[in-house]
């Protein structure tokens, strides 16, 4: 594919450089990148956050924020027309008719005050001179191609009335209604659940085939790449590191950076670890229930069962994973166990002591034993306090002197691989991965028996993710901790968990040892979850990397 270009490329980016404003950490957002996309080809742009993937996409669409990011060199040829040179009027004509874009978060990309049908209709009104009836027919027709059912009622509903997957289909319909030659998809499945993601990927592939559209697909997920890409372009810090056919890049990567990225992708084979069966149980839940709702002043009583009869058990030194899609109640379980919310019914035994219903005052002495680490490292540290102050806060709450607490914090920092001198800096001076380490340090400072990691690595880049996962494993072994690991990512679960509980609609549908669950899933839902995982059957290059 690379050596022979039969027809003219749809999109050809040549030596494109986009400058960053003065005072940024580097000079160029993207530097001398050259990418071409042939007709009917899916090119995946892969890279970690800050690598310039989205800037590339936005420059093609001509959507770069003016005054801040300016293309300073190179050309972007869309079917022989240089996008950087054309007038604003022509650019408007090109958008939608020749090229179009779908975004990561369909809820924010769609206008909440317009019906979905009207939003697609708007594209047609702007670019064509069709009459109302023809436009309506076209809208219904394109929605039909998106494998939606009950088309006219979907066209008449507002974005909030639809599910995430349906909304993304609307976005794709909107992008494709004028049959553009180029579709740019900026992380279109990142915000979706795995099963929905699988459907959307299939849909994009199918539609791309039927419409003969060229696709520039931006993602950070190598599973998705394996699933969809014809060719792959790997970016790092604004430069193209490597490009080539998907199979070649994924199996025999050349550049060390690509090797590192692919090596960081957790594989599906659950790790085996011989567990001493008779270690004491740190935490057990019995018929744990959490119901939201109840009566308001004037409303009818409306109850939502977030968690229903959950029974779990975590032994010292072991990791229990809770796996499920969004809304399955996995986070609610975690927050009940940490007693951030009060469970409605059931028992939570922390070393044989039931903490499910104890009062706030007697809870105070138990708080230090269970510590929780949250998903978003940017919001889980108070931006106005130094990280040192955040780490020692808990220790001071339990009566330790400031000097003593700082000493413990200093001793902890090497364990999470951060320089102790960094204690008096503020959170915004750290990267996402470093912040997550600081959160781990804060949890460890309390000397807990159980650590709850609520999607703790989901917001991190793959390479950082693998380091943080390794850190979790390391502290679990060293300190003999019990870890409750909540994730939506089956690869991550396979890597760290000893036992796995699969949750669906607030109930645990499957519960057992990781090796057993992965090799021989019993429940139908578990099987569909595994089948949907992107790149499941793909054999990534086996590269062992050394981190830390």
């Amino acid at each position, binding site marked *: 594919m690379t050596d022979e270009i039969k027809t003219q490329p749809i999109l050809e980016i040549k030596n494109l450089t986009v400058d960053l404003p003065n005072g940024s950490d580097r000079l160029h957002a993207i530097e001398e990148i050259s990418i071409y996309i042939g007709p009917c080809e899916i090119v995946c742009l892969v890279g970690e956050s800050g690598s310039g993937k989205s800037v590339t996409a936005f420059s093609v669409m001509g959507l770069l924020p003016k005054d801040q990011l300016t293309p300073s060199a190179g050309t972007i040829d869309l079917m022989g027309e240089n996008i950087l040179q054309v007038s604003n009027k022509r650019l408007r004509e090109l958008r939608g008719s020749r090229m179009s874009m779908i975004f990561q978060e369909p809820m924010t990309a769609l206008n909440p005050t317009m019906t979905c049908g009207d939003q697609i209709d708007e594209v047609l009104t702007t670019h064509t001179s069709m009459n109302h009836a023809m436009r309506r027919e076209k809208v219904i027709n394109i929605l039909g191609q998106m494998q939606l059912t009950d088309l006219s009622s979907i066209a008449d509903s507002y974005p909030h009335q639809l599910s995430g997957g349906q909304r993304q289909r609307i976005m794709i319909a909107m992008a494709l209604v004028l049959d553009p030659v180029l579709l740019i998809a900026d992380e279109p499945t990142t915000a979706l659940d795995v099963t929905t993601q699988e459907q959307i990927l299939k849909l994009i592939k199918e539609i791309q085939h039927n419409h003969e559209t060229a696709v520039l697909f931006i993602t950070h997920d190598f599973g998705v790449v394996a699933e969809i890409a014809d060719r792959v372009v790997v970016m790092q810090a604004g430069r193209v590191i490597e490009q080539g056919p998907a199979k070649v890049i994924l199996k025999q990567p050349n550049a060390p950076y690509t090797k590192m990225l692919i090596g960081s992708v957790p594989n599906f084979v659950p790790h085996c670890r011989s567990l001493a069966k008779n270690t004491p149980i740190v935490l057990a839940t019995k018929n744990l229930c959490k119901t939201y709702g109840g009566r308001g002043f004037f409303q009818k009583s409306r109850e939502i069962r977030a968690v229903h009869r959950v029974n779990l058990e975590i032994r010292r030194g072991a990791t229990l994973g809770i796996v499920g899609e969004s809304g399955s109640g996995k986070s609610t379980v975690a927050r009940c166990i*940490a007693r*951030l919310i009060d469970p409605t019914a059931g028992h939570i035994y922390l070393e044989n002591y039931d903490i499910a219903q104890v009062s706030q005052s007697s809870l*105070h002495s138990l*708080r*230090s034993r*269970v*510590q*929780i680490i*949250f*998903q*978003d490292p940017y*919001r*889980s*540290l*108070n*931006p*106005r*306090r*130094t990280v*040192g*102050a*955040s780490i020692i*806060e*808990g220790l001071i*709450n*339990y009566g330790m002197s*400031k*000097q003593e607490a*700082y*000493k413990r914090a*200093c*001793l902890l920092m090497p364990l999470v691989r951060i320089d*102790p*001198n960094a*204690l*008096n800096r*503020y959170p*915004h001076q750290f990267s996402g991965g470093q912040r997550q380490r600081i*959160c781990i340090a*804060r949890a460890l400072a*309390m000397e807990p028996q159980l650590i709850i990691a609520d999607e703790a690595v989901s917001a991190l880049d793959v390479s950082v993710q693998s380091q943080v996962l390794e850190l979790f494993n390391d502290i679990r072994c060293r300190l003999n901790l019990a870890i409750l690991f909540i994730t939506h990512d089956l690869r991550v679960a396979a890597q760290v968990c000893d036992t796995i509980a699969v949750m669906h609609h607030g109930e645990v549908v499957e519960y057992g040892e990781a090796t057993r669950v992965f090799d021989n899933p019993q429940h139908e839902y578990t099987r569909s979850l595994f089948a949907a995982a992107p790149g499941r059957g793909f054999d990534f290059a086996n590269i062992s990397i050394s981190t830390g």
Partner: protein
Amino acid sequence: MIEGIEKLVRSVTSDYVVMRMSTIWQQLIRNSSIMFGAIVLGFVVFIAISAPFLDTMDPSAIDLAWRNNKPGVRHFKILPDGTTREWTYRMGTDTLGRDTYSRVIYGAQVSLAVGSLVAMLSLTIGLIIGLVAGYVLWLDAIVLRIMDGLMAVPGILLAITMVSLANASLLTLILAIAIPEIPRVVRLVRSIVLSIRDEPYVEAAVSVGTRLPMILIRHLLPNIVAPLIVMGTYIFASAILVEAILSFLGVGISPETPTWGNIMAEGRLMFRIYPHNILFPGIFLAITLLAVNMLGDGLRDILDPRIRKRL
């Protein structure tokens, strides 16, 4: 090993305090709007405090022979101790022949006192109520209904009622102006608390065993300080104006006591012929409000580490 760590601990803990104090101080000095605001406000405060020593006369002394003089008129005046001296009406006189210059200088006292005390009082009370209402959910509904009720009553009307029920003293006036401002502060504080109380870092603080009062003070309060300062400057400004309105309606401080509002209210009658009675207190009022607002804006920028990074 242990010795090294102790050394490190000492350096970290001491650096911690020193660094924060010195950087904040440097930021204060470097910020031009804070410098301007502080200097001007300091100047006005200085004028207010040292009013008797700034070549002023009794601000309520009436001299019917010299009514409605334009600024700069000189004449010989018999002082209370019997001596005679030449006196310059720097800012003219009003309809009762009182020296506008002296009245404006003395007026700074009352206006600043009313503005700052009202701001402090309503911010303090509003902050406490708002914090508790925002964080303790079951109290929220009750507090909010009371505040809604309070907001339904026009502020001026409430103030008039309060002043007519009690004596027209400075304290009553301050209370009367402060109370209608409280619901606004409560709503501001509550809305910020509601948006921050679910932030993961607040939950993290709960899970490391931080008790409610400390959560409010350590994690929620710092986020509220910046908008409160801006709100405070607004209340400061509006309190001075409301005081002027109340004085004009005759329910404020008695007219012989000079306040900027009083002077302007009286000058209004003869504004077309003798604009100086409104012009001079107006200039003082405008400059003071500008200084307060610039100070508030500057402080807001500095107190927020995220904005500070951008500066």
